[in-house]
């Protein structure tokens, strides 16, 4: 379904009426202001686009879980369910010229960025049409054109890369922002500290964006971090830092947007903690026995999509019928996405050694080791 292809030029687009099926990523206004987020008719299309994107991610992830159970997907597989507001709100405010580095919990990140969801699913299926041509899988999506600089699997390991990307931006005298997304658990590892200090010492334009879903695997934030309010850790780097309600997509959008533009303006790193909740287990195979049903229920009540739908409904911008139609459209869309992934070809085994090295060293036989 051609309409699901990622929009590479969304900034230039006008705000047009959104009717499902529609591009997964809404047209984003040049700047996201409080006014643009008001629950008014004029903002309807944009707001519904955001809602639709959140729903797409939700449904995509639900079906991902199902496809995993069917063994269409393998490896470690981490979902964004429950984090849609934090993810969409954290990513949409970036310009397409900005860069994103993120963790292994990234399907929704890629989709929010505008990466073709078919390529995301195809990557999960390990197919040649995937974002990383089937070499990366769930944890390692990549899209150079969208400056989606990859999902990484070693906790905290991508933070230094983001600092380096920001170094390059500055070196080239450009005005892009590098957004680096990571979890609460990642703030306890050494690379976090080194990277934040580095970014501040060299005035690098990085947005450190922590998706605090309150758990690192089975470990609650407060059991692993001396400071439970993660955003406060930025004090050690003399860095501006805020906590946002990661269940409220409009708040996240607005405040992230402000911070991104501040970073762009003065090339100073900043920190955002988006407080949310991981609705599912750590990965699709996690039986999740370590959290109480009450706790889970409490947060389910604050479901960011439900909350947003409530706002839209109360303000008369949409109704249950509309939401149902969106859900149906997305169901069909994700069905297509899965079909695309399923029908895509596997990488060729004879290409096994392709991409180990670049340029003149690509596929050189002496680099295959002992040619036994």
């Amino acid at each position, binding site marked *: 379904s051609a309409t699901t292809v990622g929009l590479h030029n969304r900034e230039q687009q006008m705000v047009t009426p959104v009717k499902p099926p529609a591009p997964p990523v809404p047209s984003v206004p040049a700047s996201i202001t409080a006014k643009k987020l008001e629950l008014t008719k004029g903002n309807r299309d944009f707001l519904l686009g955001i809602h639709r994107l959140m729903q797409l991610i939700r449904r995509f992830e639900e079906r991902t879980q199902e496809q995993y159970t069917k063994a269409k997907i*393998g*490896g*470690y597989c981490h979902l964004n369910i429950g984090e849609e507001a934090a993810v969409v709100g954290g990513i949409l405010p970036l310009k397409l010229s900005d860069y994103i580095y993120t963790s292994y919990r990234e399907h929704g990140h890629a989709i929010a960025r505008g990466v073709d969801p078919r390529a995301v699913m195809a*990557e999960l299926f*390990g*197919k040649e049409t995937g974002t*990383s041509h*089937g*070499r*990366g*899988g*769930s*944890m*390692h999506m990549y899209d150079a054109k969208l400056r989606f600089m990859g999902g*990484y*699997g*070693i*906790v*905290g*390991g991508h933070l230094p890369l983001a600092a380096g990307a920001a170094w390059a931006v500055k070196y080239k005298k450009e005005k892009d922002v590098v957004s680096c997304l990571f979890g609460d*658990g*990642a703030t*306890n*590892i*050494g*690379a976090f500290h080194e990277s934040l200090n580095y970014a501040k010492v060299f005035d690098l334009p990085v947005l450190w964006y922590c998706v605090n879903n309150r758990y*690192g*695997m*089975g*470990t609650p934030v407060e*059991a*692993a*971090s001396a400071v439970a309010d993660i955003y406060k850790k930025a004090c050690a780097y003399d860095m501006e830092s805020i906590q946002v309600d990661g269940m409220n997509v409009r708040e996240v959008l607005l405040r992230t947007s402000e911070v991104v533009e501040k970073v762009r303006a003065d090339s100073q790193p900043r920190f955002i903690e988006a407080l949310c909740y991981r609705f599912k287990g750590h990965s699709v195979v996690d039986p999740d*026995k*370590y959290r109480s049903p009450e706790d889970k229920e409490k947060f389910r009540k604050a479901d960011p999509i439900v909350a947003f739908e409530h706002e839209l409904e109360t303000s008369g911008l949409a109704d249950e019928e509309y939401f149902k139609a969106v859900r149906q459209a997305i169901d069909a869309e994700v069905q297509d996405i899965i079909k695309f992934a399923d029908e895509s070809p*596997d*990488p060729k*085994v004879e*290409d*096994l*050694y392709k991409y*180990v090295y670049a340029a003149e060293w690509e596929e050189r036989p002496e*680099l*295959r*080791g*002992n040619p*036994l």
Partner: protein
Amino acid sequence: MAAEEKLYRVALREALAEEMERDDSVYLVGEDIGKFGGAYRVTEGLLDRFGPTRVVDAPIAEEAIVGSAIGSAMLGLRPVVELMTINFSLVAYDQIVNNAAKIRYMFGGEAKVPMVIRMPGGAGHQLSAQHSHSLEVLYGLIPGLLVVAPTTPADAKGMLKSAIRTDNPVMFLESMSLYNVRGMVPDGDYTTPIGKAAIRRPGTDISIVGVSRMAVLAHEAAKQLEEEDIDVEVIDLRSIRPIDWPPIVESVRRTSRCLVVEEGWATYGVTAEIAAGVQERCFDYLDAPIRRLGGAQVPMPYSLPLEKASIPTSEDIKKLAREVVGRKPLDG
């Protein structure tokens, strides 16, 4: 001795529990080993049994986990660290190499570091490039460390006990793919020595030395090769550091042919040392070059067909074994 069939992961758990019962100075530390039950469920139930002082859920901070274990060992405790997988040991590599392995020597024997670092390695679960590593050689290289890779439930239990009891730092390399393997485990308290290879199957035509899970595959291959009238001696290396040369040398001198297999990259891998060492020790006995088999020299791809093409199989072992056996001796 009475014995019972058990899972590899259960055998490990028993070793931990029994050693903790036996010695109060033994404690466990790692990420999600307590409430979560351990990423591979080795430590399941131990938090309830021993409490949070002895089963410690640590932050994601491998340098602190490993380093603090070292510090506590210097003060007489016997930490058993679980690193969730060997991949994350790279973050703590400096602590292992520069502290755990060196503290005793650089302080002139005045200190010691009795500790174990357990971690599973290996590939085959579509975990892709950053999470599919063997890397035994990284630890085998380092004087001051003992390094083992048990492949049976019985060895897992017995060697873990030995590892916990020695006053030296031990890298205890488990394999993700072996946790669900069953095998007979002797009842009661027993230890299996570190530093000893095991002949898994006697044979006369070729000696196959397998590292970690590849010893198991080599055994499978050997059974199948029997039908082709190739009589394989299978040696499970078990101890990466030190290497138990005598049985390997004795075997190769007898069979005159040798194949060495590992799951990781063979170039600069464990098999390089074994092949180099065997030719030094068995030169006059060899009828064919020692061959090596390892994983494809690529960062592990996610795609299932690509991943499969990257990991040695028992078919690969058989093919190479046939080649080695078929190779005419010099005077042939």
